[in-house]
């Protein structure tokens, strides 16, 4: 099992603040994915990072893949209430393991 640990587990911030979510593993991944899940729904893919050191931007979200391909981070700039949800990193080869999750609440 490739364990993916996320931190923090819970995050509650005011609208307009910045935040960073971390995803760490002792294993090397060929790629890592980030998903967002809203209540009552399945996760939806945000981004896939595939190259060590890669940085990808999706509007106010910035994703980074560690140089050693064992970790990744998600940074949100000027968080909005619509960013509220469960953020999950995931990785695998013939399978897909998910991280422990970060539940983000953005307070208006």
């Amino acid at each position, binding site marked *: *099992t490739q364990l993916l640990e*996320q931190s923090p587990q819970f995050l509650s911030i005011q609208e307009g603040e910045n935040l960073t979510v971390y995803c760490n593993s002792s294993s090397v991944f*060929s*790629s890592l*994915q980030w*998903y967002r899940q809203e209540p*009552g*729904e*399945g*996760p*939806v*893919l945000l981004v*896939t990072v*595939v190259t060590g050191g890669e940085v990808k931007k999706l509007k106010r979200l910035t994703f980074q893949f560690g140089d050693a391909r064992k970790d990744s981070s998600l940074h949100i700039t000027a968080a909005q209430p619509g960013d509220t949800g*469960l953020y*999950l990193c*995931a*990785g*695998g*080869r*013939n*399978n*897909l*393991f*998910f*991280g*422990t*999750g970060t*539940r983000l609440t953005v307070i208006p």
Partner: protein
Amino acid sequence: NAGVTQTPKFRILKIGQSMTLQCAQDMNHNYMYWYRQDPGMGLKLIYYSVGAGITDKGEVPNGYNVSRSTTEDFPLRLELAAPSQTSVYFCASSLSGGDTEAFFGQGTRLTVV
């Protein structure tokens, strides 16, 4: 396209009963997965399949069985339901392995009483 379809959406089982959760995808994806998600937690991989006729265990396979006789269908069987199996179950599919986008069904909320 319907994507990934799970049935039923909700189910209450008594301890010791059995049931099958259905999952079907119409995207011709080779890879399919079953996860369980406990309240406030991430997803735990139960079983996965890399193609018709091939299945393998994930992180938490005990108490479950799967089969993959066609590319489209990947049912999950619960034998002798226990309260610890109360959870939300998600089925997903992807074109290839963990480096391609996984598409999820709407989930099945199962309660064992």
